[in-house]
Structures are given as C-alpha cells and as structure tokens.
C-alpha cells in the first residue's frame, strides 16, 4: 500500500493508505477526543465526539470513520467543533447521572470523600465504582463547563446482578457500543447486542435472558473496554484503579493463558487479557476466578503441626524441623502427590524430593481428584504397608488414606478434610503470589510473575520444598530464588489437556484446583453446572423473626420498609434508632426510625443500599423476615417549643427528619423542612413531609428542582429572611459538616444526628465513640443527637472510614451474594420516573 500525506492542524502527516483521520492525528501526536473509538475495534462512528473540519468537505465528519486522503487539510480544534463536542457530551449526560459534575460542592466533597460510596445504583460520580477511570467524567471535567442545558433522564433500568461475576447498570450506558463490538470481535457471535430502538435502545440479550444462558463466556472483555461504570467486575468493583499491570500466566488449567495481572496494594484484582483479540481470550475462571480464589477468606495462613486432636500453629523453622524428623523415619516409604496446576519448578522439586527420599511421585491432572486410578493404587500400597508417609500438594487424596497414616504432610492454600486430618499443614502461596514458569498443554513454556502478596505466613511451594529438602539434608535444594531452579529442569512433560474449550463455553471450565472442587471455593460457579460437594443443609437458628409488611425502592438506592416490631413501636420516640440484622449471620447495623404505629405494632425505616449489610436488607422482600430488630435505642430528641426550627435532611436523612418534624410541629414550633438530593429523581417523601411541616424547601445539587445546592445554601437563605431558633441536620457526614459550618457562622443553635460505626448500640463496645467539644461520647447511648458546633468532624470521618477496605472485601465476598439478589420486578426502581 502506498503512503499519503495530509495536513492536520497545519502539521503535515505521512500515513499508510487506508488510515483514518483519527489514526493519522494520533500518529502525529494530535489528540482528538473520542468515546466509541478504541484501538482494538473497527471504526463505528457512534459517539460523534471525534468530529473534525476538513477543507472542502461539508459539515463536520467523524474522524474515526473518515479515511485520510492525499492532500487533505484537517482542523481538529475550533470554536464550532468545541461547541459541537460539548453539545454532544451534554446529550450523553442527559441520560447519564451527572449531578457531581455540576455540583457546586464538588471540590469540597472530593476532599472530604476521597473514595466513592459503594452504592447499588451509581446515581452520580460519587457513587460510581468507575469514578477514577471514567472517560466520560474526564472529558466533562476537561470541557470545564458545569452547566447542563438539558434535563436529566434517569432510565430506571433494573440492575443486572443475576450472574456469578458481573454487575451491570445500564442506567450509566451511553451506547458507545464498545462492549458488543468487542464481544463480536472475540467470539464471532456476540452474547450481547443493541436491542430496541430510539429512546429505549440499550445493550441486552435476546428476551433479556441471564448472561449465564445468552452464550456469554465471561471473558470480561466488555468490562475492560467499557468507558463508563456500566459494566463492572463484582469482585474488583470497589477496589479502585489497579496500581500495577504485570504480564503473567494463568495456571488454573493446562491451557496456561497469558494474562495481565492487575494488582493493587499487593492484592490481585483480576487477570485480564493481554490484548483485545480472539487469541488472547480468557475463560471465566482465569478472568474472574483467580482473584477470588486468592482472596478466599479461608486461606491457610500459618504452618500447623498436630498435637493429639489439635493442629497447633507453629513458626516455619519449628514446623520444618518437626516435618523433617518425621519424614526421615519413613525414607523409602514416602509417596509425593502433586497437582498439574503447579509450576514446573514446584513439580521438579516434588520429583527431587520423591526420588531422593526413595519414594514415588504421583502427578495428577488438573481435573483429577482422590478417585483417580493412581490414587487407588497408592491406597493399595498404603494398605500393604509399602507406603507409610505422604507429602500431598493439595486436596488430592482420600481422607481415609491420611487417617490411616502416621505421617502426612499437606502443602496447600485452602483447608480441606484432608488437611484437617493431616499431621502437618504447610500454607502455600499460589497463582500470582508465586513466580516460576508454566508449561501449558500446547507445550509452550511461559513465565509466571510473582506479583501479589500471600496471606499471613504462606510461602511459595518452591520455597517450602527447598527448605524441607535442606532440613532433610538432601542434595541440590539450596535455591534462594525460583529462577535458580528453572535451569535444572529437563524434559518436563506438558500437562494433560482438559476436555472441551473453557474459553468458548463456561460449562467446560476446569472443575478442580489442587484437588478442591472449584465450585466449593467459588459457590457461584454452580450457576455453570460445575460440580460441588453436596452441602449438609445449614439450618439457620430460626427465631420467629420480624415480618416485613411493606418494602419498596422509593428512589434509587432508597428502600422503604415497614416491619412488625410491636415492642419497638410501643416505646419509640423521635430521634431514636434501631439495630437490624437481615439474617442470623449478618452484621448489626443501625437505622433511624422514620415512623412507628404502636397500635398496629409496626415501624417504618428508610434504608440506603451502600454496603453489604444494607444490601442484605435491601434484598429482603415484603412477607419475608428480618432476623433481628432491636430498639428503640439512643436518646430521643427533647421536644420543646423553640420558635422556628429548620430540619435539614439528605439521603436517608430525608426520611429520618420526618418524626422530628411531626413532633416539633405538634409542640407548636414553626417547622421548615429542607431536603437535598443530587438530582430531582433522587428525592422522596416530599408529600409526606409537606404534611408535617409549615414549609418544605427542596434543594438539588444539579438545580433540577428547587434551590441549586444543598442544605447549607437553604439554611443560609432561610436565616436571611427570618430568625431561626434551631437547626437540625441529618444525613451524610459531609452534608452535616458543611451545613453546621454555615449555621455556626450564623450563630444558629444546631443539632446533628451522628452516624459512626456502631456494633452493639448499648454503650458496651465503644465503636461509636465521638468527640463532642472536650468530651468523649458514645453515639449509641449519649446520642445520636449532639451539638453540631462541637463535633470533631475529622475524627468522625476517619473513624467512619477505618474499615473501608474490609467493607469493600465484605461486599465482594462470595457468600451467597448472587443468591441474595431477587430478580427485581417491573421496570427498574419504583421511583416512578
């Protein structure tokens, strides 16, 4: 192909024929903004952000779809282009949550809330997992405009959380089409497509089938290519942007695919494709499974040595000495069993150990378990007394084999009945925690990067085996690095391939890892029909529970509950709260009482879905029960006639101010209720509140309804026109902090209801400690209502975020997360918009 020359912004560029104007500009180092264009996708021309001016061409063609021609004169920056791009962006934002971009408090909010809130629905940047990586947000911030001239239309599509690995929120989708295009490119027949048309066009599957049945292979390419927060990896979603991306090899099955390990703070977030192509495709296990196996809460973290009935934790030195002395007594009668999903170095060392100890080495295929024929013959040798000790790298032998032997050493990462019955358990670092090389079923040798941290005292197997060899005084075990072992390996055979193609069919994934059934480690894999150990039914201790009589998502993320709790309803007073547990195994979490009816014996609550406990509660439906409702807790608000009282509520606080407003008004106060939300579609209970106050003032951060701004603007405006005798704010820490700063300046007596982390709610644990002036108080028994001008907000904010990382981990834990999700009914949330 010949080359052509063209001029872009006055710069002359030489490119191959067939190059698009966009590619030519990039080659010349000229940046043209785009959303739908991606280097690994064919030109599509959907977003129209990349428009340019070309001399002699009418209008504003999209540079991504226009081929460069000889002598072409292109302009990429001009006033009309800037205007066009901004208008296009505005149109996109009309259908994409945008309030954070136009919010007058954005800078302060980002300072005080550096991490996004892990909400169910991302109704703004501050609630979006993709905040730090969002192309759209970056573009909008660059454009610099904080005015949107179009209304925000929230589509209210249901969240899709019905498959094992992905969270999909099409309310954030801008229809750039990157996801289905990459799906088509990699798989030929896409598992998703644009369905419907016009206003109702969205990405979906045929007849809205779950992705488990739509032909999706869960390669994760759509997630990795999505420019917005629409498609997310449920496990990695809230963990933030990866700090490192390291090329490595997945060893979960004999395919040994090349991967890019995304690592943050020493933890693996995901294995992703090395490039967006069919050849580089990954299976669900590699893409999503690896990181979740490593993060498993049951990982073995300390060496354990048997003392009678118990396995006692011991240091490595002591454990190795005990192990060596025990094994030394069985020389010549030792069997070593390893899995094919170990590195070449590990298998070499297992082999050395076996041969030097005069024993036999058994290597099991990836999908093989204790029923393998090699294991049956091992069992026979044990019965005959020919084998008296075993070293097993996984859950690879039957329990009875271990119980029959006096000496059994298990080197593994996860517990199993076998490790629990063993004499010695050595915790292993696995996958991205251990380096080395891997020979795949296609005979290729690939490097594995040790790039994430192992939990506790777990060590790579090569390290364990070298130490063990040295403790046994064996030859050539003096290696200090895995790279030192590699050259010694000769003629290692490739592992046996697994049947089927896991990259094309999720029902053909490897079934085991180190002998453990993968569906036991990651229960959600059961959705693909992977075998799991039958569970003995866990019977939850069933108290009567507290019946939910009414449940509704009244605004995105806001769930209204009416619960039968007669004792609470009988004694409740304004300003008090209850502690709830969705299930017997749930955490306790506090929620303000919104209303109660002593006669009917019911209480009402508004629960915002922003974490694991609230998600468990939000997943309950009317007719079901909550395991525990304890309360009423905390000191009620002293109801006095003060004159004019302004009540400010944001988020869950909109509901929480309701009982205060009612009581204060009955006591003769002039009550002004002020409520804030990011955008008008997030408001709720306006009518109910209006009934119990003299005036209802609405504020929205994007100005879509009422005052533009928040409670802080409203309190200033009200104080400007009439004297305010009391101000009470309930909502997020940020809102209360900002509003109290204003009320302090205006010298308005102010109360706030604090929301620190709380455990028992009865003053015992001290988790809810707050500093009020000079005093230390417990929010549960001394509060939750305190003088807003005396609070140490920095301390409150830091104590509230003390467990941020654990909260994220808890959210993504495998435990029944998918099972918790009811298929939502109807068209999205019931906010009616």
């Amino acid at each position, binding site marked *: 192909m010949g080359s052509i020359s063209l001029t872009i912004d006055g710069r002359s560029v030489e490119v191959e024929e067939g190059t698009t104007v966009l590619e030519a500009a990039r080659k010349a180092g000229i940046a043209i903004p785009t959303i739908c264009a991606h280097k690994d996708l064919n030109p599509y021309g959907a977003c129209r952000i990349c428009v340019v001016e070309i001399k002699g061409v009418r209008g504003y063609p999209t540079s991504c779809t226009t081929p460069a021609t000889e002598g072409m004169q292109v302009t990429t920056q001009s006033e009309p282009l800037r205007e066009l791009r901004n208008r296009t962006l505005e149109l996109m934002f009309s259908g994409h949550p945008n309030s954070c971009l136009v919010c007058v408090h954005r800078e302060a909010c980002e300072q005080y809330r550096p991490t996004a809130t892990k909400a169910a629905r991302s109704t703004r940047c501050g609630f979006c997992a993709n905040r730090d990586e969002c192309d759209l947000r970056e573009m909008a911030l660059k454009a610099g405009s904080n005015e949107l001239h179009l209304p925000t239309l929230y589509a209210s599509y249901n969240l899709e959380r019905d498959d094992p690995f992905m969270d999909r929120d099409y309310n954030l989708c801008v229809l750039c089409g990157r996801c289905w295009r990459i799906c088509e490119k990699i798989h030929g*027949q896409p598992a998703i*497509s*644009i369905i*419907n048309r016009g206003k109702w066009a969205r990405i979906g*599957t*045929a*007849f809205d089938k779950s992705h488990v049945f739509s*032909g999706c292979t869960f390669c994760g390419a759509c997630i990795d290519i999505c420019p917005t927060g629409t498609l997310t990896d449920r496990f990695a979603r809230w963990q933030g942007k990866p700090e490192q991306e390291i090329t490595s090899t997945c060893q979960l099955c004999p395919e040994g695919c090349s991967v890019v390990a995304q690592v943050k703070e020493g933890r693996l977030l995901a294995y992703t494709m090395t490039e967006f192509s069919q050849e580089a495709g990954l299976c669900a296990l590699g893409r999503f499974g690896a990181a979740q196996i490593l993060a498993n809460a049951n990982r073995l973290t300390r060496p354990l040595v048997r003392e009678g009935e118990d396995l006692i934790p011991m240091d490595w030195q002591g454990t190795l000495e005990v192990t060596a002395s025990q094994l030394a007594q069985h020389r010549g009668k030792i069997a070593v069993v390893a899995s094919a999903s170990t590195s070449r170095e590990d298998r070499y060392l297992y082999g050395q150990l076996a041969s030097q100890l005069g024993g036999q080495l058994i290597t099991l295929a990836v999908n093989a378990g204790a029923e393998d024929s090699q294991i049956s013959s091992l069992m026979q040798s044990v019965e005959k007394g020919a084998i008296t000790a075993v070293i097993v790298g996984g859950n690879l032998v039957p329990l009875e084999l271990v119980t029959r032997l006096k000496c059994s050493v298990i080197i593994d990462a996860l517990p199993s009945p076998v490790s629990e019955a063993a004499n010695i358990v050595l915790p292993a670092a696995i996958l991205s925690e251990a380096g080395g090389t891997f020979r795949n079923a296609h005979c290729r040798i690939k490097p594995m990067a040790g790039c994430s941290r192992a939990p506790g005292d777990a060590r790579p197997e090569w390290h364990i085996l070298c130490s063990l060899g040295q403790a046994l005084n064996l030859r050539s075990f003096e290696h200090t690095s895995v790279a030192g072992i590699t050259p010694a390996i000769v003629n290692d055979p490739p592992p046996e391939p697994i049947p089927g193609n896991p990259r094309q069919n999720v029902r053909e994934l490897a079934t085991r890892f180190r002998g453990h059934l993968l569906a036991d480690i990651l229960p959600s894999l059961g959705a693909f029909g992977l075998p799991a150990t039958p569970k003995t039914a866990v019977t939850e201790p069933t108290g009567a529970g507290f019946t939910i009589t009414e449940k509704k998502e009244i605004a995105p993320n806001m769930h209204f509950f009416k619960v039968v709790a007669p004792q609470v309803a009988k004694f409740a007073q304004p300003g008090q709260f209850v502690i709830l547990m969705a299930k017997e195994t749930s955490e306790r979490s506090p929620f303000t009482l919104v209303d109660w009816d002593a006669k009917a014996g019911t209480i009402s609550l508004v629960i915002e879905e922003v974490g694991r406990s609230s998600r468990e509660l939000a997943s309950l439906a009317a007719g079901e029960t909550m395991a525990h409702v304890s309360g009423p807790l905390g000191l009620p608000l002293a109801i006095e006639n003060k004159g004019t009282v302004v009540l400010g509520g944001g988020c869950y606080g909109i509901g929480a101010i309701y009982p205060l407003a009612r009581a204060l008004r009955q006591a003769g106060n002039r009550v002004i209720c002020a409520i804030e939300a990011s955008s008008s579609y997030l408001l709720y209970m306006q009518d109910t509140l209006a009934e119990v106050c003299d005036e209802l003032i609405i504020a929205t951060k994007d100005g879509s309804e009422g005052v533009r701004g928040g409670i802080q603007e409203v309190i200033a405006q009200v104080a400007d026109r009439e004297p305010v005798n009391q101000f009470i704010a309930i909502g997020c820490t940020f809102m209360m902090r900002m509003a109290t700063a204003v009320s302090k300046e205006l010298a308005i007596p102010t109360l706030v209801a604090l929301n620190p982390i709380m455990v028992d709610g009865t003053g015992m644990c001290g988790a809810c400690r707050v500093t009020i002036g000079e005093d230390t108080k417990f929010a549960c028994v001394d509060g939750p209502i305190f003088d807003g001008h005396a609070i140490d907000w920095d301390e409150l904010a830091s104590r509230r975020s003390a467990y941020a990382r654990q909260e994220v981990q808890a959210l993504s834990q495998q435990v029944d997360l998918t099972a918790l999700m009811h298929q939502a009914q109807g068209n999205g949330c019931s906010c009616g918009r």
Partner: protein
Amino acid sequence: MPSEQHSLEAILSQYAQNRDSLIPLLQDIQEQFQYLAPEAIAAVAAHLNLSENDVYGVATFYAQFRFVPPGLHHIRVCEGTACHVRGSDRILESISRSTGIAPGQTSEDGKFSLERVACFGSCALAPVVVVDDKVYGRMTAPKTQKLIEEKK
C-alpha cells in the same frame, strides 16, 4: 407443536444461510405465526449462523415485529403527528388502563393486544384507532372505553 416445528423448518429451508436473509425470514415467520417466539429467534439464529442476541437486536429495532402472540382483538393506536397533536397519548393511556397492557403486550386472558403505530394515513380522521383492521376515527378516551367494553 410438531406441525409448527415442521412449518418453521419449511420456512427456514427456503432461505439462503447468510445474514442477507435475516429480515425477509423474520417477516415470513411472523406472517405464518403472527409473532416471533424465542424458539423461532433461536432457529433463525442457528440457520443463519448468527447469535440469538444479534437476531433479537435486529428484530427489536423494527416496529413491525412482535414477540408475544397477538390477542383475539388487536388494537393499534396511531401516534403519528396529526393523531399526536389531537391527543392520541390519552387514548393510548386509557386503553392501557382498561386492558391492563402496555404497547407490545397481550392481555393475560388473550383477549387484547396493543400496538403503537406511526401513521395509518388517515390523518383527517385523527386521532385514529384500528381494531382488527377496522378503522375508528375521531376517537376520544370515553369512545375507546366503550369500544373495548363491547369487545370484552
């Protein structure tokens, strides 16, 4: 139903196995069965070597395709410009309310199905409702209510 299966296969066999056949094939199937069932979409996808999602994506783009069997009485409400300005929105809403179905749906008892149509070309009679190919002009919400009551 074996006979339907048979005729679905018969329709498929008349079309070349490439993407160009997609829309004529869907039209032919709809003419035969009055709607595109999930099984029909799956069969078309298999015949043309496309993904079901892709076929469904194309089919849902066109207003002419239905995905549920039509009711005994098929009601079409014109939403064209002339009808729109003369209040067809309210007519559609009133029909939705009295039949309990949204456009594109069929009532549970199978009596009614509802469809939104761009223009019938009877703008002089706006707003227009067509029930089972009979045109009713100058409609109002009460008139449509009455019409539905009669058909119930």
